[in-house]
């Protein structure tokens, strides 16, 4: 099949570019080797839209972060993914004032608006649970929190309703440069395209190699995180950072757009982008360091731990045309990649693609796909009427998050329907609450099996090789 543009990689960057291209005359396909979008670094990060004072002056990171952060509110209004413009705080004790000034100055040069140094008293007014020896803070009102996987899914869904194609479970295994096209083969199909965009995240170097482009040296750092129960949510109102050090932004405490508290990440060098196993030493480090900036963290309220890997190339993003102007590299997008994502998409489509062989023209008519609100978000009288019409909206499947069968039906019939339990969880939060799916997993399996006309034996947690059920007691010849 022939496309104008193929994007490799369905993370937040690939999907941001996909969504932007779907608003143009380009026929565009996204290939993702995972069973869903947002299954790499985009699902396992801090979920923070940084203001942009942290990135080094003059870098792509600085420019695209500040610009991206400014684009988030509009994007949120259009697409309605979970995003809150909370503002952020860098917290320091009295020795840290110079460090805060350093950040403030860098932020001003980077163009971050409205940065402000706050005294302890001013901090306490907006963030009551800061640690006792915190004396000063840097307040960045343009920062916010976002659900990175819901954003990514939302971008993909909106691209699809505007004519783009997203193929998951397709791993690119072969790329050939022809006279004026690329041939791309996956484990399932063969395609061709004019422009190829590498957004493969942790796998970016592998794709460059297949495409005969210069292969970058990548570095990988794992970040471990704790997720605390929603009962802790009201304790902290802003993403709270310590002063950054050579190893990154340090261990932060933040509310999430999903209504939990996140504590982390560590920054531990690992061998590749898929080393997401958590280290117990990392968890210990988080517990010890988080209390330096805030108090009252209750690690008995932990509902989950996870880790993500930040894949980097040198110190800055690599966003450029390759040896061939029809090959575009969007690589080494570690922090603040999520914050910069809308600006990265704009930069790629509106600037880098000018040098390519395709002529990008924005369409006049744009479709917006808005998800139905969850039953729990409706006012009582509306919910009552809805249940009277569709009783599935009264059947609570996930009781921790109060997600009903009606909500799940809607999600299972969305433009990019979830194929796995994890994909359902990322879209509808079912299984994400304090019981972590103990009660609802079986029902979710039944709903997935019904949707795809398969048996519950075929339902997986995260794609091929992760079936929940390993055998049927009555039909397995090896069983008694």
């Amino acid at each position, binding site marked *: 099949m022939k496309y104008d543009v193929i994007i490799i990689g369905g993370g937040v960057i690939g999907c941001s570019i996909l969504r932007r291209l779907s608003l143009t005359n380009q026929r565009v396909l996204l290939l993702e080797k995972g069973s869903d979008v947002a299954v790499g670094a985009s699902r396992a990060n801090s979920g923070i839209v940084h203001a942009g004072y942290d990135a080094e002056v003059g870098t792509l990171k600085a420019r695209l972060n500040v610009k991206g952060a400014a684009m988030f509110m509009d994007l949120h209004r259009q697409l309605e993914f979970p995003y809150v413009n909370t503002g952020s705080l860098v917290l320091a004790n009295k020795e840290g004032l110079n460090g805060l000034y350093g950040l403030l100055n860098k932020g001003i040069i980077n163009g971050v608006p409205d940065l402000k140094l706050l005294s302890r008293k001013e901090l306490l007014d907006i963030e009551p649970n800061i640690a006792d020896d915190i004396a000063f803070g840097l307040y960045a009102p343009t920062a916010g929190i976002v659900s990175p996987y819901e954003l990514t899914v939302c971008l993909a869904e909106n691209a699809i309703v505007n004519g783009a194609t997203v193929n998951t479970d397709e791993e690119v295994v072969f790329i050939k440069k022809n006279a004026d096209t690329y041939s791309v083969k996956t484990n399932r199909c063969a395609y061709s395209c004019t422009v190829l965009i590498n957004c493969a995240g942790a796998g970016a170097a592998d794709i460059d190699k297949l495409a005969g482009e210069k292969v970058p040296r990548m570095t990988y750092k794992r970040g471990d995180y*704790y*997720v605390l129960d929603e*009962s802790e949510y009201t304790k902290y109102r802003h993403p709270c950072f310590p002063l950054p050090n050579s190893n990154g932004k340090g261990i932060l405490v933040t509310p999430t757009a999903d209504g939990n508290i996140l504590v982390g990440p560590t920054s531990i060098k690992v061998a590749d982008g*898929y080393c*997401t*196993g*958590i*280290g*117990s030493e990392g*968890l210990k480090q988080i517990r010890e360091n988080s209390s330096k900036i805030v108090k009252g963290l209750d690690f008995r309220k*932990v*509902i*989950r*731990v*996870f880790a993500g890997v930040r894949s980097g190339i040198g110190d800055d993003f690599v966003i450029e045309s390759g040896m061939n102007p029809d090959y575009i590299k969007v690589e080494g997008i570690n922090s603040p990649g999520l914050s910069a994502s809308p600006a990265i998409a704009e930069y790629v489509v509106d600037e880098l693609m000018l040098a390519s062989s395709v002529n990008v023209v924005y369409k006049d008519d744009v479709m917006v796909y808005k998800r139905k609100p969850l039953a729990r978000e409706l006012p*009582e*009288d509306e*919910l*009552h*009427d809805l*249940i*009277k019409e569709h*009783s599935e909206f*009264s*059947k*609570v499947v996930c*009781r*921790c998050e*109060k997600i009903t069968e009606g909500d799940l039906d809607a999600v299972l019939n969305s433009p990019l329907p979830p194929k796995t339990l994890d994909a359902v969880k990322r879209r509808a939060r079912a299984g994400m609450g*304090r*019981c*972590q*799916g*103990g*009660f609802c*997993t*079986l029902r979710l399996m039944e709903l997935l099996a019904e949707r795809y006309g398969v048996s*519950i*034996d075929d339902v*997986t*947690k*995260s*794609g*091929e*090789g*992760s*079936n*929940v*059920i*390993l*055998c*049927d*007691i*009555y039909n*397995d010849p*090896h*069983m*008694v």
Partner: protein
Amino acid sequence: MIDFDVVIIGGGPAGMAAALSAIKQDVSVLLIERDKRLGGVLQQCVHNGFGLHYFNEELTGTEYAERFEQSVLSSSVKVMLDSFVIDIKADKTLTVMSAEEGIVHISAKSIVLAMGCRERPAGAIAIAGDRPCGVWTAGFAQKLCNIKGKLVGKRIVILGSGDIGLIMARRMTYSGAKVLMVCEIMPYSGGLKRNIVQCLEDNDIPLYLSTTITDIVGKKRVEGVHIAQVDSKMNVIESTKRYIECDSVLLSIGLIPENELIRDIGVEMSRITQGAVVDETRQTSISGIYSCGNVLHVHDLVDNVSREGELAGYHAALYAKSSEPLGNKKYKVIASEGVRYALPQLINAENIVGDGSGTVKLFFRVGGVYSNSAVVVKCEGREILRRPKPVFSPGEMESVVLKTKDITGDIYIGIENLPHN
């Protein structure tokens, strides 16, 4: 707004017993259950060992539930199935979401909380390593096995020696899987002795005490786990670390009362039981709101859950009829040396209600294994009860019966080591 005298939330063993006991007092009773059938978790308990105390015969969990279900359905208790309580207010009004009726507002004279408990998930203990498919709570594996006839794995390591884990060790073995071991981080088991004998020892499944899983290995699916012993401070002893190949990990690491519904209405809660603080009638700190069963404190035996449900249901009905709160003055029941918690935590001072026979039954759990010891209950410096026992262990809920006439002030309950003879 629909009015009822007594509204019971949860149609498991506690709620069904409460409903049956309340209805005998000639009040209107509503039992609300979110599932399509009554019975709660008993519906997936196909093993036996239920009812020995309550019915004086040994039943399976499903049989036990069915007896109560039949009685409820043939009584005048109004049952709402497929109905989910969204909200309770301190004035005892409830908002319920029901398949048939949409959103319903209900006003109750008294409420019995009987929502049961949930299993602690893997995330709560933050196991290091990968997060592949194949790590499940024992209860989930039980549901899949007993209701669907499917197994989550064939080579299984169980972490935690709670009763559901022990029961599932046996059940998975009987179903053809290989249960390699049960690891328990504590130096003692958290389950009933009878389950350790019948589920593990009878099936040659080893129980490793002071042992935990340090990390899980496997990208898509569990491929194995590292286990290691821990020292007395729970630190992993690195030299004991070893790799066990398996395809699944089942967790039986504790049960947590499901009290989220009352989180914001000001019911006084116990940090130890994670349930409400109650008096001997199972009334909470809000007059007319009662709590019973596993939502109050986690029980080992369903027989005790049913008895507690009856107690709470009875008093909720009396309250609905009279609406007169008991006196405000209450004696405290204080868990001292060796006792982790005792329940009820309060006893009415002015008019001890007891159980009608001039006695009050105190339930308690110890905080460690105590051999050659006695439970001692004191009131105003006097010893009012002493009962020696060869072994007290945290996995077994114990009880003592106090005479109401002996209760003249705060009660202290503790464990005393007996001198060796």
